[in-house]
């Protein structure tokens, strides 16, 4: 039997982490996901790759796009997402570090949009394999 660390899916973990926190912190109707839906208030997360650092840690590059129908609200939404992302390491044992590498940047498009890029380090959970 071998005991090894298995890494969580950082993208789906972050979707599950952000969704309830945004809903209770100003955005009850927000859609958070890894597919763009075109909803009025939406946070779209995508993974751009990453690597295993050692036996216990892995990184993921996470691209985040925030959309809000109200141009006056899109910056606030992006700031709220940024704050929650940077708060993640203090709230659980899965996310070890979050580094914001870009944004929020203005993106011209059909809807008001802001773009951010994060490096997220996650901890593996030990599993026993036979």
């Amino acid at each position, binding site marked *: 039997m071998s005991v090894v660390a298995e890494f969580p899916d950082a993208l789906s973990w972050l979707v599950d982490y952000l969704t309830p926190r945004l809903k209770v912190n100003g955005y009850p109707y927000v859609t958070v996901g890894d597919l763009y839906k075109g909803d009025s208030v939406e946070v779209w997360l*995508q993974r*751009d*790759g990453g690597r295993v650092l050692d036996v216990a840690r892995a990184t993921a*590059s996470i*691209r985040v*796009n925030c959309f809000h129908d109200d141009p006056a609200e899109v910056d606030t939404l992006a700031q709220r997402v940024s704050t929650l992302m940077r708060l993640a390491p203090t709230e659980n044992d899965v996310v070890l570090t979050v580094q914001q590498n870009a944004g929020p*940047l*203005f*993106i*011209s*498009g059909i809807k008001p*949009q802001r*773009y951010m*890029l994060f490096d997220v380090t996650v901890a593996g959970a030990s599993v026993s394999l036979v």
Partner: protein
Amino acid sequence: MVIKFKLDHAGLGAVLKSGAMAAAVQAAAKSKADEIRANCPVETGTLQASIHVEMTTTDRAKAQIVAATDYAAEVQSKTGFMSK
């Protein structure tokens, strides 16, 4: 046994700003820029052709990979071509 170690800050600073370090950083950045160019979405080729390396020296040799079009950020936000 105790080994005393004293960091040579001035020496390290000189190494980080040296021509050899700049060349190594530039080579690594050019290699990454080639990779980004290869993965860049192409419609007219302008964005792909605009990708280049800019070298600067702060307290060390630094390289930046730049996509120099006004719509590069929009394409990056949708495709992640610079961060993949």
